[in-house]
C-alpha cells in the first residue's frame, strides 16, 4: 500500500529533472516525517498528523518549483520588456500588411466591400493571435533555458540613445491626417475598381458598370496612379509637415485630378451609357441644374483643398521662423 507521503513525494519529484529526484525525495521525506512527528507530539493521531503536514505543504508542483528556483511565471521580469516591445512592433507591422494584402486580393478578384471588411477583420484576428502566440512561446522557452554566463542575444542593454524623442507638436495631428487621407484614398481606389461590377445594394444598378468601361484603356489607370501619388504625398506631409513646395505639389495634383475628371464628365465620357439608362437620365428639366451643382461642388472642393494647403504652408513657415528667432535670442542671451 502506498502512503499519502509516497504519493506526495512522487507528485512533487516527477516535475524535477531525473538527476535531482532521489535527493529531493529523501529531503522531502525527512521534512514530512519531522513535521508529522511534531504534530503527533501535540496529540494528533499519526494519520491525522500526516494529512495535516501534507496539507500544510500545499501543491506539490509549487513546492518543487520553490525548492529548485524554477520560474512559476510564463515570462519573468528579465524578458518581459523585450517581449512586450517586440510583440507591439510585430503586431503594428504584420497586421496592416496582412490587411492590405487581403484587401488587394479581394479587390482584384472582384469581392464586395462587405467581403473585404469581413476578410480583413478575420485575418487581423488570426494573424494577431499567431504573432502573439509564437512570440510568447519563444520567450517562454527562453525563460526556462538555463542561462550560460554572459549576456544573451536578446539581452539588450538599455542606453540613453534609446530615449524616445519628445513628439514634435503637430506631428500627432499630422498622423491623424495621414491615416484619414490614406483610408479615404484606399477606399476611393477600391471604389473606382469595384464600380465596374455595379452597385450591389441598388437593384437597378446591379451588374452595371457606373463609369464607362472604355475609360480602362487610359483614364481609369491614370486616376489609380494619381491616387497612388496622392498617398505618397500624404506620407510626405506627415514626414515633413506643410511647406510651399508641398503646397505647390498639392495644387498640381488637384489640377491633374479635377481637370480631366470634369472634362470627361462634361463631354459625357465619364458615366457609362448603361448606367445613365438605368438611372433614366436626363431627368427632364433638372438635368442641367444637377450638372451645374456637380461642377460647382467639385471645383469648390478642389479650390478649398488648394487654399487649405497654402494656409497650412504659410502657418508652418511662420512657426518655423518664430522658432528660429527664439533660438537666436536664446543663444544670444547665453553668449
Amino acid at each position, binding site marked *: 500500500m502506498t502512503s499519502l507521503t509516497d504519493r506526495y513525494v512522487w507528485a512533487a519529484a516527477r516535475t524535477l529533472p531525473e538527476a535531482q529526484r532521489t535527493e529531493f525525495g*529523501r*529531503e522531502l*521525506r*525527512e*521534512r514530512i*516525517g*519531522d*513535521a508529522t512527528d*511534531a504534530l503527533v507530539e501535540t496529540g494528533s493521531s499519526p494519520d491525522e498528523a500526516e494529512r495535516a503536514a501534507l496539507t*500544510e*505543504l*500545499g501543491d506539490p508542483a509549487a*513546492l518543487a518549483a*520553490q*525548492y*529548485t*528556483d524554477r520560474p512559476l511565471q510564463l515570462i519573468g521580469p528579465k524578458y518581459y520588456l523585450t517581449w512586450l516591445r517586440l510583440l507591439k512592433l510585430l503586431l503594428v507591422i504584420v497586421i496592416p500588411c496582412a490587411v492590405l494584402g487581403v484587401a488587394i486580393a479581394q479587390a482584384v478578384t472582384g469581392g464586395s466591400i462587405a467581403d473585404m471588411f469581413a476578410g480583413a477583420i478575420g485575418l487581423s484576428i488570426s494573424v494577431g493571435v499567431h504573432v502573439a502566440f509564437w512570440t510568447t512561446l519563444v520567450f517562454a522557452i527562453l525563460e526556462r533555458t538555463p542561462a550560460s554566463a554572459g549576456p544573451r542575444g536578446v539581452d539588450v542593454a538599455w542606453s540613453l540613445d534609446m530615449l524616445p524623442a519628445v513628439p514634435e507638436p503637430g506631428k500627432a495631428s499630422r498622423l491623424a491626417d495621414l491615416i484619414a487621407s490614406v483610408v479615404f484614398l484606399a477606399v476611393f481606389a477600391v471604389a473606382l475598381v469595384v464600380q465596374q461590377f455595379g452597385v450591389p445594394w441598388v437593384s437597378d444598378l446591379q451588374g452595371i458598370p457606373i463609369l464607362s468601361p472604355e475609360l480602362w484603356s487610359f483614364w481609369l489607370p491614370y486616376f489609380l496612379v494619381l491616387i497612388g501619388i496622392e498617398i505618397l504625398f500624404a506620407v510626405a506631409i506627415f514626414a515633413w509637415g506643410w511647406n510651399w513646395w508641398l503646397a505647390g505639389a498639392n495644387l498640381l495634383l488637384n489640377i491633374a485630378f479635377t481637370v480631366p475628371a470634369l472634362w470627361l464628365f462634361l463631354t459625357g465620357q465619364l458615366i457609362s451609357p448603361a448606367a445613365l439608362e438605368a438611372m433614366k437620365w436626363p431627368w427632364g428639366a433638372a438635368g442641367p441644374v444637377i450638372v451645374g451643382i456637380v461642377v460647382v461642388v467639385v471645383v469648390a472642393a478642389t479650390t478649398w483643398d488648394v487654399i487649405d494647403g497654402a494656409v497650412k504652408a504659410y502657418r508652418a513657415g511662420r512657426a518655423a521662423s518664430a522658432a528660429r528667432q527664439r533660438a537666436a535670442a536664446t543663444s544670444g542671451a547665453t553668449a
Partner: protein
Amino acid sequence: MNFDETTAAHLQELRRGTVVLACLVRLRTPDYGYALLESLNSLGILVDANTLYPLLRRLEKQGLLTSEWNTAEARPRKFYRTSPTGELLADALMTDWRRIDDALAGLTTGDE
C-alpha cells in the same frame, strides 16, 4: 491592501536577509532542517518552514553550506554545516548588519 498587510509585507522584507545570516551562524554546529527551524523560532528569529527548507538547499548549492546524511536513526536526516565560504559571508553580513544598526541609531538620536 490594509495597514496590517503592508506592515507584514515590510517586516518580511526586512527579515529576509537576516534569516540567511542566522542560518550561517547557527550552523557552525551541524544540524538538520527541523531542529534548525525550532531553534531559530525559539530564539525569536521567526522563519517559516516554506522559506527555510528551500533556503538551505539554495545555500548548499551556492557552496555556503555543506551537507551530510545521517542514517544512524530510523529516519535519515540531512545535516547541514557552514562551509569556510559561508563563514566569510557570515562575517561580511554581520559587519554590515552592525553598521546599519549604528546608522539607524544615529538617525534616531539625530531626530531628537
